[in-house]
């Protein structure tokens, strides 16, 4: 199960934070700070997995953005790595060539996409097309 998802830039500014477990606000800030510290200085050749407290963080860097998933120790790391990539592809498709600013100004849409992709810490949909179509339908509701 995914415990939380973080999207941070290299300076450690959080662009998206989704928690599937209850945490205090102060604890969330601490977690975001620690995860950023863990991933930001890792060599690109290194594994995309870091142990974090009793869990592990699967992260992937796209330009200046780090996508980090905190998952259970027994979860399939490679699958979650693929999962991050799928999410990025969806964002890329939706915003047509996504950049950090898209995510800043449309943060509420990013959350909406994420809610169509992952729910309750589990993968909900594996088809990029299905999610993009669903987003189109939701936008029509506005």
């Amino acid at each position, binding site marked *: 199960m995914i415990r939380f998802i973080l999207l941070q830039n290299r300076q450690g500014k959080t662009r998206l934070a989704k928690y599937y477990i209850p945490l205090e606000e102060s604890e969330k800030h601490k977690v975001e700070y620690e995860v950023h510290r863990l991933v930001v200085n890792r060599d690109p050749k290194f594994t995309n997995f870091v142990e974090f407290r009793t869990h592990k963080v699967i992260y992937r860097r796209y330009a200046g953005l780090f996508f980090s998933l905190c998952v259970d120790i027994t979860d399939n790391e490679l699958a979650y790595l693929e999962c991050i990539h799928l999410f990025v592809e969806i964002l890329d498709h939706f915003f047509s060539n996504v950049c950090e600013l898209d995510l800043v100004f449309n943060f509420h849409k990013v959350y909406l996409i994420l809610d169509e992709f992952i729910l309750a810490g589990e*993968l909900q949909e594996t088809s990029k097309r299905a999610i993009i179509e669903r987003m189109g339908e939701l936008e029509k509701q506005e």
Partner: protein
Amino acid sequence: MNPFSSGTRLRDMIRAIRACKTAAEERAVVRKECAAIRSAVSENDNEYRHRNLAKLMFIHMLGYPTHFGQMECLKLIASAGFPEKRIGYLGLMLLLDERQEVLMLVTNSLKQDLNHTNQYIVGLALCALGNICSAEMARDLAPEVERLLQFRDPNIRKKAALCSIRIIKKVPDLAENFINPAAGLLKEKHHGVLITGLQLCIDLCTTSAEALEYFRKKCTEAVVKSLKDVANSPYAPEYDISGITDPFLHIRLLRFLRILGHGDADASDCMNDILAQVATKTESNKNAGNAILYECVETIMSIEDNSGLRVLAINILGRFLSNRDNNIRYVALNMLMRAITVDTQAVQRHRATILECVKDSDASIRKRALELVYLLVNESNVKSLTKELIEYLEVSDQDFKGDLTAKTCSIVEKFSTDKIWYIDQMLKVLSEAGSFVKDEVWHALIVVISNASNLHGYTVRSLYKAVQTSGDQESLVRVAVWCIGEYGEMLVNNAGMLGIEEPITVTESDAVDVIEIAIKRHISDLTTQAMCLIALLKLSCRFPVCSERIKDIIVQYKGSLVLELQQRSIEFNSVIQKHQNIRSLLVEKMPVLDEATYSGRRAGSLPATVSTSNGAAINLPNGVAKPSAAPLVDLLDLSSDDAPVPSSSGGDFLQDLLGVDLAPASSQLGTSQTQKSGTDVLLDLLSIGTPPAQSSPSTSDILSSSLDNKISVNTLQRLSSPSALSGQASLPAVGSPVMDLLDGFAPNPAMHEDNGPAYPSIVAFETNSLKIIFNFSKAPGNPQTTIIQATFTNKSPNVYTDFIFQAAVPKFLQLHLDPASGNTLAASGDGSITQDLRVTNSQHGKKSLVMRTRISYKVNNKEVLEEGQINNFPRGL
């Protein structure tokens, strides 16, 4: 229009915040926005509510407090339109969590929205419920969610499935309601619904045994078929990831099969073919394929034994391990750890590669590899693996050293076959990473050193050399200080030289240098400094030439700000200056530390009885195993002078280090001392044999009282021991109890009858003032043990009082001194004192006896000290 009024659009606010150059500017903008939002909240403004909440969420992301917006979420959720509800639910998920009371207020809105005619609103409600529902909400809303599992739109069905997972995690009792609908989802063709349905089944199986049984019976074949379909499916652009159709679905199916097959031979049998197919046919040149293979290997390892599949799985892991991609190597290490319980041999084959991974530059890989190595160690490879680990310790990162040290120490402790190897390896670790070694590890090392009597010399010399190069490693310094304090003389006289050693020349003052440097190092902490002081006290006696210098060092701590050090300094100084006569008794070598007692203490529990360790049993002259049920016998048993450390209940290690119980006195004092739990060491030190209540005995009566007490205690013991010892008839010196009573006071020739070949008596020591004669006899049935009766005669015209005879022997010998017949020696050979010594020669037949003696007494209240060495023992003793 004011750009910061509530009239600004979200986009404008974000721009304004991004335009801020300093944190102060940003705070100002946020403050203004928050003020505007607050006033809108109090005016109950409906038009811009969702825009305001969206702004608030952005502000929240920046880390500012936004609790005042919580009620706004609820209002938005309760409003009619989709856009309002969308922002309301988003705010609910971001600003609130399951623990807030406010959440209860939303249950009703959720219930309405779950029954809404607009399926997009139903979707929003399910999403919020799945992400933040509490146990109460789960109970209230479970029927709605259960119904939605059969909703016509697959988008709602998959959301309802994941929502159900959250519900059964919060309220496991509800699991049984979901078993049937979940099984229904497994028949779906829609990937989203199938994948969420599978996840629901997996979670149901972990919460309910009933569900597992049900799925195993009804669904195994269907799941196998689904896997077959997806594995053999033609190119499907919608789900394709680098040439594989929906790897996520593959993985969920494999995971569910693992749960179904685990511990069930039939189900396992059913999935063998498809697992073999996935393991052999899946492309392994892309991450997606490897993710499937990885999951497949795990499933093969978990289901019931099929050796063919396992070979396949181990081979895949072997390929992973040699992959250039670090991620793949990482998961291989991860999986090998689980494979080790299944097939150790197969994992052992990759040992060299795994060891290389310990040295990887990536901390994640290192950590995995180290844990794997730890599991791989066995008796046959421990030496080579330890060597590699210790070599790597020298060059490893600082932050990895802690882990590496802990694991290496644990391996060395667990698998050490001989003590010299253990000591060598521990010294290497201490020299490389002494500051990372935990206290209990070096405590254990000291216990082992103490028990390895033939290695004392070797160890202390090795430590001396190690400290010269790695004097900055705290725990190395501590062990070195302890050993030099205990075995300092072996450092100087190169006693107990092993063949592999290079002789070194160390003077007494070199040895004291080590301690002095250690105590004066600015980074030394209290424990180290306290240990140094004790070592110095011990050395002051062993190295008379350095006595003055040592006293000077100790005196420097008289003014220490640390009370403990100050007190020790003053106490030890007074021992050195005023109590010459008892000092040597005080600083006798520590008796061998009992490993069992020690490890018991380490485990946090005190042993109920003084245990009989192997060491103690071997040292019994008659080789008869001691009856372990009688701890009292152990304590009173005079035949083993290395009786285990009395189990004084304090966990105070320092007390042990001090070696309060002096070898000759210990057995006699056994009863009184063991029951003492006081920690005032010096009180013990100064009051040998006096009851603890007598806290400040005057110097003059210490010795007399102590000796009197010794004799009386001894007599008592003898009286009490025969019944317990009667089984050990061959025990020397315990001939008959009555004789024993007399034994201490008058020589009893009868005792030595029939004790094997007779040996000529020797004059062991002779000066103008004193003569010592040794008579020898053998303990019956034990050629290694010699009983020596020493007779002391005063040749001077003055009476000697406070007469004490002490002896020391090299390590291959063991010496036990019985109490002397008295402590006053009449003048001019008018009377004599006798004392029995028992020497056990572990090298009997190879080496002959040798002994150093020290005699102290008072003439006209003036202290006299005489020392000598006895080399003229008859051969063959």
